[in-house]
């Protein structure tokens, strides 16, 4: 149809449209979010799209659509698959009738993640096929065909792009958008869909019986392919295969693994023809373990023997270095180029006017000896403000907080959690804390949106993924129905009231909830809310630095005095912090 310059995730989304997708769900997570973000705003193909409240919820909704014969997609980041792991494992037993693709995006180097886990391990664990594209074009092509593969074997297909696929761009050859629409029809079949022991034992056998044909099919489809060119070889997977191709000599053989499970016979035939094989793959040695298993006399190099780095993401330079270590001369070597030392870091920072900053500021003022478990979102950046003591996974702020409280630690515990994260997995933790008598404060950072991942709506926003008004919900009512008797909602831009609310919370015992509510400053600006910027009266500023501790990127220091830059969003909190009254709204001096 046309060649366009597209983000990997845009190419993947377009491929779903080409494949006659009927249902898509997901929970936002970098680097996966743009797939649903494209599908939910496109107008070319009408079908059901939702942002779900968490990945397990998203998975089960899409699975049900596939049980009704529809073509369904479910998207998440790699750690989201942990949340959805329960239905994932058993969906391999039940299988599907309509094509079901589970996109789980891995993040080598943990650019925006809490770990570097490898989705291919889940595919192996669940005995499900997994597609692992090496380029943006291949990601598009694989996704277009993945629904048919799912239908052919009656199995969910795991689609595993990595950050450098999702967030790379390239020229992508697109096909026509599909015009076929299916009608959902659930056929009652308890032996398939009710996994009582008597049924599941049979289903497990069926799943295992599917494996040999599946392995062969992935070779037939060209996902796993090789070219024999010499006595040494490289076996590469995913985006690492692209880096290998950039530096590989033309007398070295190459096998590219684009799908799992790998056909061992096919791989053994390739490996056997070489004296030495180097395996290049990001994250876990998934391919390497199979290569080592099938190699009889071939010498194998990879992560396990230390030739290839285990952690992080690769570049052509790291691949060239590994080739060198395995004595397979790369076509290019790269100079050692180190960054200039001593350049002050510029880490990501909460925006000027972000509602999290005054909330953290007030929390630390009132609870000077507090312990601050936090969660996953923009507000994890509160680390820079000394307001984040723990972060492990979605929803864990409340549970870690109640665990610390019930361990007997006597300092006050104040957990912070965003609105979307609270709805994702925070509620069971709050219910548990109340039920088991924890003594803690929970601060819900209610900015009305899932901000970090690109401003996706959630049930608290009042809009669905496709922009329709949704039934309003009340965080206050949810907390109260979990058994919390003291719930206060406060505007975090109003610093005196915010401080006062925290002081009141400090005087009480049991689980107390403070809901700090103010729209994300980015969405507020986009929706047309304009606030007058603030300025510093240089005659009143004593250079005391009180505003410096606030950590706002709009506050700069000129010699000894503070100044406010054009980044000011007009929240006005710094005016309340300044002890000299030197910060005033512009034009009101």
């Amino acid at each position, binding site marked *: 149809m046309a060649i366009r*310059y597209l983000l990997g995730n845009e190419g993947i989304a377009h491929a779903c449209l080409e494949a006659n997708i009927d249902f898509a769900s997901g929970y936002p997570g970098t680097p996966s979010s743009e797939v649903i973000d494209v599908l939910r705003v496109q107008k070319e193909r009408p079908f059901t799209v939702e942002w779900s409240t968490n990945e397990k919820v998203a998975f089960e909704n899409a699975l049900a659509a596939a049980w009704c014969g529809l073509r369904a997609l479910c998207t998440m980041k790699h750690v989201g698959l942990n949340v959805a792991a329960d239905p994932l494992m058993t969906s391999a037993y039940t299988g599907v009738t309509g094509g079901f693709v589970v996109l789980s995006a891995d993040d080598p180097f943990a650019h*925006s993640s809490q770990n570097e886990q490898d989705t291919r391990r889940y595919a192996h664990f669940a005995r499900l096929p997994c597609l692992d594209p090496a380029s943006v074009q291949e990601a598009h092509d694989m996704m277009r065909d993945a629904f048919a593969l799912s239908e052919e074997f009656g199995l969910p297909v795991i689609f595993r792009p990595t950050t450098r696929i999702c967030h*790379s761009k390239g020229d992508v050859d697109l096909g026509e958008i599909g015009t076929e629409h299916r009608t959902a029809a659930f056929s009652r079949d308890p032996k398939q869909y009710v996994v009582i022991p008597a049924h599941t034992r049979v289903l497990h056998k069926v799943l295992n019986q599917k494996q040999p044909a599946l392995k062969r099919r992935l070779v037939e489809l060209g996902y796993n392919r090789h070219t024999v060119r010499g006595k040494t070889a490289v076996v590469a997977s995913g985006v690492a295969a692209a*880096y290998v*191709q950039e530096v590989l000599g033309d007398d070295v053989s190459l096998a590219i693994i684009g799908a799992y499970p790998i056909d061992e016979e096919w791989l053994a035939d390739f490996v056997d023809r070489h004296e030495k094989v180097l395996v290049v793959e990001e994250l876990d040695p998934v391919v390497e373990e199979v290569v080592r298993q099938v190699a009889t006399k071939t010498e194998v190099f990879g992560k396990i023997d230390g030739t290839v780095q285990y952690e992080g993401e690769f570049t052509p330079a790291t691949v060239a270095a590994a080739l060198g270590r395995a004595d397979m001369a790369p076509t290019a070597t*790269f100079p*050692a180029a180190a*960054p200039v030392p001593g350049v002050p870091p*510029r880490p990501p920072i909460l925006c000027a006017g972000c509602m999290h900053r005054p909330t953290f500021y007030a929390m630390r003022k009132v609870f000077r000896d507090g312990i601050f478990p936090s969660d996953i979102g923009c507000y994890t950046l509160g680390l820079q403000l000394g307001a984040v003591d723990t972060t492990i996974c979605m929803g864990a702020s409340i549970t870690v907080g109640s665990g610390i409280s019930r361990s007997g630690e006597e300092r006050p515990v104040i957990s912070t959690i965003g609105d979307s994260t609270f709805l994702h997995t925070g509620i069971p933790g709050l219910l548990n804390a109340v039920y088991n008598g924890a003594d803690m404060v929970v601060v819900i950072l209610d900015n009305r949106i899932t901000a970090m991942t690109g401003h996706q709506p959630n049930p608290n926003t009042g809009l669905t993924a496709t922009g329709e008004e949704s039934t309003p919900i009340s965080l206050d009512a949810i907390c109260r129905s979990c058994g919390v008797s003291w719930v206060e909602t406060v505007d975090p831009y109003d610093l005196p009231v915010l401080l006062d609310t925290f002081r009141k919370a400090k005087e009480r015992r049991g689980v107390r909830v403070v809901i700090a509510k103010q729209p994300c400053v980015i969405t507020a600006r986009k929706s047309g809310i304009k606030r007058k910027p603030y300025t510093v009266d240089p005659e009143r500023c004593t250079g005391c630095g009180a505003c410096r501790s606030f*950590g706002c990127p709009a506050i700069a220091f000129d010699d000894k005095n503070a100044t406010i830059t054009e980044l000011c969003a007009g929240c006005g909190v710094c005016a309340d912090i300044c002890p000299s009254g030197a910060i005033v709204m512009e034009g009101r001096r």
Partner: protein
Amino acid sequence: MKPSFDILIVGIGGQGTVLASNVLGEACILENCTVRSAETHGMAQRGGSVESHIRIGGKHGSLIVPGTADLLVAFDLLEALRYRHYLPAGGRLVVNRSLVVPTSVYQQDLDVPDEESILTALADLDVTCIDAASLAEEAGSILSQNIVMLGAASGEIPLRPGTLEEAVRRCVPQKTVEVNTAAFRLGREKGAGTP
């Protein structure tokens, strides 16, 4: 010879590096040239240091290896210093004469180099320094600094200026086409005129 022309665009989240790289990608499509690029999304966008890799004629991966970039375009002096190791010795740098001091400097009392010392530290490169803010204002909006910088660098880029201008028109919001076209031209004149 290297098959692709590799450009690294660096700046601060919010300065429009992604839009600038989109223009280059779109121009490649217009000239039927393959292209690969990599962007910063997610957490690092929040006012942090950001980088876009664009490989014109690229066929494989999207990442540029340090020491091998053909051109570095920096929207901030400090970011030029942070990423200068992507250029080989004497490599080509087009940099905005602008220095935004990171908030971390104020919070952690770090030393920050001034404009003059940064330019001294970059002097061994082939440097063009552009006052993008004043050119952007001349074009009609301070927000067009990214397109000014692209224009200033365009003389080095193996894509036709007419194609790049067309790509600017396709990538920027409809009501800013005029301003951004002017920004591109002003940047291009300035980039060509400075030794």
